[in-house]
């Protein structure tokens, strides 16, 4: 079944770049849907384990909790980078793409440093493992984002994104927005879990990042 000489030269009817970009947009959104399910699964796991607190061991104390200002800072840097990217698309910020790539790279480095700074190891308990995996997911997202952003920057430099291929830029922009949302969801999950992580912990582990715990959430955790 060789395809030799079967190719009909007339078959290569030109395709509208617009249709092509539209197709890529649908594909990107679908991949983001799958990724969203993944992020939701991680978030659900964290909160579910938190709610069950099996054998009182979700976070029995003895190790610290993650400081919250760190992931929120990372999220903020990511949002600013995404804004820079989008403003360049609107035409009002000449070096927006470059700035956004730099910003995402900074966020990536910050997140990795954050993982080294955790006052616990991944194997301490379910809480530590859950914080670790959510942060690791963010690292993965950021690494992909830096790759995509770098690609767009290089391609702009080489002029490969002009004209018919400008949809690359827009689709990477969608991804930028999504990673910000994902980072926000992850950070929010950690915050919620931290805020209710249990009274003994809040007492013996005063942490600048941990919010004060309302008494109602103390009584609800079955200790």
């Amino acid at each position, binding site marked *: *079944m*060789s*395809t*030799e000489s*079967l*190719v*009909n030269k*007339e*078959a*290569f*009817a*030109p*395709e509208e*770049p617009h*249709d*092509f970009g539209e*197709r890529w947009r*649908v*594909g990107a959104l*679908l*991949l983001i*849907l*799958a*990724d969203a*399910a*993944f992020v939701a*699964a*991680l978030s*659900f*796991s964290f909160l*579910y*384990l938190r709610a*069950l*607190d*099996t*054998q*009182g*061991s979700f*976070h*029995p104390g003895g190790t610290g909790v993650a400081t919250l200002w760190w992931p929120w800072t990372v999220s903020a840097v990511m949002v600013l980078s995404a804004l820079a990217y989008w403003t360049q698309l609107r035409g009002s910020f000449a070096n927006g793409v470059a700035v956004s790539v730099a910003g995402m790279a900074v966020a990536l480095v910050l997140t990795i440093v954050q993982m080294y700074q955790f006052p616990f190891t*991944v*194997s301490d*308990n*379910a*809480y*530590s*493992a*859950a914080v*670790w*995996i959510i942060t690791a997911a963010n690292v993965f997202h950021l690494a992909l984002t830096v790759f995509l952003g*770098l*690609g767009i920057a*290089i*391609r702009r430099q*080489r002029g*490969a994104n*002009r*004209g*018919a*291929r400008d949809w690359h830029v827009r689709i990477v922009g969608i991804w930028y927005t999504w990673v910000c949302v994902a980072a926000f969801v992850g950070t929010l999950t950690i915050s919620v879990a931290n805020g209710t992580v249990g009274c003994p912990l809040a007492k013996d582990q005063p942490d600048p990042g941990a919010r004060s715990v309302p008494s109602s959430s103390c009584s609800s955790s079955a200790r």
Partner: protein
Amino acid sequence: MTTADIYKTDPSPVAPHGGIMRRLNVGTGIIAGIVLAVVANVLAKKLADGHTHEPDVRAVFTMFGWAVGFLLGMGAFTGPFRWLVGRDLTHADELFLAGKDQGVGRYFRFTTDHKVVGIQYLVLVMVMLGAGGSMAMLIRTDLISPNSGFLGPQTYNSLVGLHGLTMILATIIMVTGPFGNFVVPLMIGARDMAFPRLNALSFWLLVAMLPILYSAAFLGGIPMGWVGYTPIADQGPPGVDAYMMAILVFAVSTAVAGMNITTTIVTMRARGMTWTRTPIFVYGVLASVVLALPAFPFFMAAELLLFVDRVMGGGFYVPNRGGQPWLYQNLFWLMGHPEVYVILIPAVTALMELTAVFARKPLFSFRIAVLSIIAIVGLSATVWAHHMFASGWAPDLNGPFMLTTEMISIPTGGLFLVILGTIWRGRIWTAFPMMCTYAMLWNFIIGGITGIYLSDVPLDYQLHGSMFVTAHFHYTLMGAGLTGAMGALGYWFPKMTGRMLGNTPAFVSFWLVQIGFNVTFLGMFMVGLQGQPRRVVHYDASFHTGNTISTLGAYCIGIGMLVLLYDVISSWRHGDLAPMNPWGAKTLEWTVPNPIPLENFAVLPVVTEDAYGYGEEPVPESEPEPVPASAGAEADVPGAPA
């Protein structure tokens, strides 16, 4: 698109013969995979020397190295790399990737042509079914007598898990892989899939997965069945790492394939192919992949958490560290029940498609068919906890989940209505594919009804974890799903290979398989009701009769499948040459010549009516296009009086 038409607007002056990518194939892939695996293994030994989890770290690193190296060696990352540096693939590159003028060699490369990928998937599925079937034969041989001692408990438990996983993975891809890739773009009048390179990637990821999966057999096996329940998975040997990595790779492949097929169907249907004119099989494939797209990440997350547990000592599933095995079960079944319909819907819709052709009648109540599929897709996301009735998790939710589970029988009944209505008063041609429809009607009604028993909570308390469940899901996944795939194979074989599937061996195989199947699993229902648990290497002597019946039936299936295998191979090699449209069907895939040219259609078709106009006056041409307008309503369509 294979064609880089778009690049005509922006030609890139790269030498047409340039690039290492033209030298890559499976061979380089395997070499690079092995090299990277070895490197990763050494690295892991350095990293985790003496650590508690050293064997797991090494196993995982090695497998990861293999997968990345294999894909690298195949050239899977050429496209993204060239994109990164701003040197997009040229038109010539794209044509090379599509396998232009490459003969048989293109089946062993990172070829993007959807027809090549479809054939690759078909072969892969047959290999996997063969592997899983061989394991089934061994399992049944062990169970031929109460304490046969043929396989030890360790081997047996591993085989049960690997058989289950192999078969589940094979059945997930058995319709959407071969036929979804080969047939769907033709059926909707497209030149290729939306993302041809991702198409190739989804296939080669599976090839990278298989050695990982079967390495489990050499790494101590898997002790926990295909569901991989924790915490026994936390306890298992490094074989569990293989299970875990295989699923991670598979989940990526599914996400990529699902996104690709969905985009293709949503954005690339031929002009005039509105949603009401889209063939039902396209709906089936779409429903399957749309369902898989958000479902499989849950499985992936479940395995990733297991990864943290096993490789880094996390505590997600370990109770005394605040973990909880129910978390795994929830994540798993959030994927696990939709997955049943991921398998079933495309198979059943393939049968609907061919039933209309072989009964020479329009599909009965197209609207109910579509609504049923949508309802099943919607409901299937809400029923997962019926697998956990007996787990003790949230007994208060048993009632609601019983409700949603039983509700799903209403749209399933709708699927039966559509097929029966199509058969009614048809001119039924009982060729091999049509016989599969009949077999499905018989098997699926048994599978469906026993499913209702299991949705009933008190009955489920008794039947859960017994052979009854095993028999039930084999009736749905094999009796309906695999039978549907076999029908689809018989139906589309002439288009995919250009040759007719031999008739007599197909008939012999059909009867052997179907009779063997019913004998096997009725025997299993029997011992299930008597109280035999699943996945036991030996059993109480009171279950002897039923098990012996099952084993004999299983041998019958095995022989039948081998006859079909012979038929496929021999017909493929020297069967009768197939005419362009041997069944007189009206869908678009039958309007292209055999063998199908690289870009499928010389001129893209424009659709003016749906593909089920059997016995109807053709709609008068309203389209002023110079194109032969039709959904295959060519002059060769029978029963259309001029």
